[in-house]
């Protein structure tokens, strides 16, 4: 028998769990091996020390708490009327409550935040269109992009009709110049142009500007 195998069986040896023959073999080894004998003695002393640890007294309030618990369970059992489904439901409600309780506050905060955020956005959503009776700003001082509308003016009454998309960009335009309809001379783009900036977005006007805008103006100079 080796020291390794002897130590491996120290637990069973000390707890008297070995068969007589095996027990005798280990005893013989311990007689010859001082190291293993010391090891077994230490473990044996340790085992005795553990065994000698005093028992732990139950706190008196625990006894009372357990009895209260028992009476509550009995009462609940009477209420359930022996119904297995009701009892199962009560059990799962109890577990669900234990699961959800720690999440209640953060979940409530999340729901409230969502309601406030999306509630405030709801006021900005409006797809109805209506005519307005106020001045529409045409030019923004900070706007560096512009549309060039090439046109030759032939009369002093010019009506420029522009179609805007929802972002205020000019999609299309038409010019009514006196009795003539739209004329445009792209070759003379540099001289006869109406500089029109993109219109502001939806929120700047408070109403969508994705409809046509007509502007009537009198040019300072026109070709006869």
């Amino acid at each position, binding site marked *: 028998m080796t020291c390794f195998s002897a130590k491996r069986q120290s637990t069973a040896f000390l707890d008297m769990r070995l068969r007589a023959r095996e027990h005798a073999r280990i005893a013989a080894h311990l007689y010859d091996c001082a190291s293993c004998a010391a090891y077994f003695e230490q473990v044996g002393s*340790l085992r005795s020390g553990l065994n000698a640890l005093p028992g732990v007294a*139950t706190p008196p309030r625990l006894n009372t708490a357990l009895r209260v*618990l*028992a009476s509550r369970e009995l009462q609940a059992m009477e209420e359930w009327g022996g119904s297995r489904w009701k009892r199962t439901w009560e059990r799962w409600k109890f577990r669900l409550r234990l699961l959800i309780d720690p999440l209640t506050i953060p979940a409530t905060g999340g729901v409230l935040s969502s309601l406030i955020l999306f509630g405030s956005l709801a006021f900005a959503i409006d797809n109805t269109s209506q005519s307005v009776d106020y001045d529409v700003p045409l030019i923004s001082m900070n706007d560096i992009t512009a549309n060039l509308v090439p046109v030759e003016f032939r009369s002093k009454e010019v009506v420029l009709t522009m179609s805007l998309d929802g972002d205020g960009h000019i999609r299309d335009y038409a010019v009514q110049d006196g009795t003539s309809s739209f004329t445009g001379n792209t070759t003379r783009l540099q001289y006869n142009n109406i500089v029109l900036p993109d219109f502001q977005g939806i929120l700047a006007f408070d109403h969508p500007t994705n409809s046509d805008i007509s502007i009537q103006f009198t040019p300072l100079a026109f070709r006869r």
Partner: protein
Amino acid sequence: MPGNLSILASAQNGVSDEDARILRGLRSGIENAYEELIDRYQGGVYGIVFRLLGNQNDASDVVQEVFLKVFRSVGSFRGQSSLKTWIYRIAVNEAHNHRRWFSRHCCREVAVEGQRADHADSLKLAADPGRSPFEQALESENRTLIEQALDRINPVFRTAVILRDIENLSYEEIADILQVSLGTVKSRILRGRDALRRELTLEHGFAEAFI
């Protein structure tokens, strides 16, 4: 009634007549059965849980959880093991769960000295006229050393050592409680005792700890 038949069948497996009687009373909602169960097992359960957690308040909370589970699960207990090992199994699992939950979620200040002081009050050892104050003090010191060393070893091995060497349960009962084989029980006890021995040797020198 099917319930009674199952109890009778279980008696052949692991449930004694005494346990069967208590189980019948619990399932029927007899108050005395509940009280008898508490009186019979609360000490053992508290002892195991306290040794595993090392904290009196936590142990009290866990014991209440254990008994609540016992009361609510008694209908599903099939009697494949004894009532004692079944209850102790619940206790060990609840203690481990509690320890795991606390180690993950709570940064609590553990007043070991305070808890140990509370526990010391609860022990209240009677003076032994046959032993000198010196011997009693030495024994008290040895006890503290062992308990501190026990707290430091692996929880898996600690459980096995507590169940065997402190609660004096048999290998079979421990195997039933921990739901492992007998070989595993022996291995855990061996490694637990060895770890304890090394802890005591490293910290205090074994010879000094056990004069």
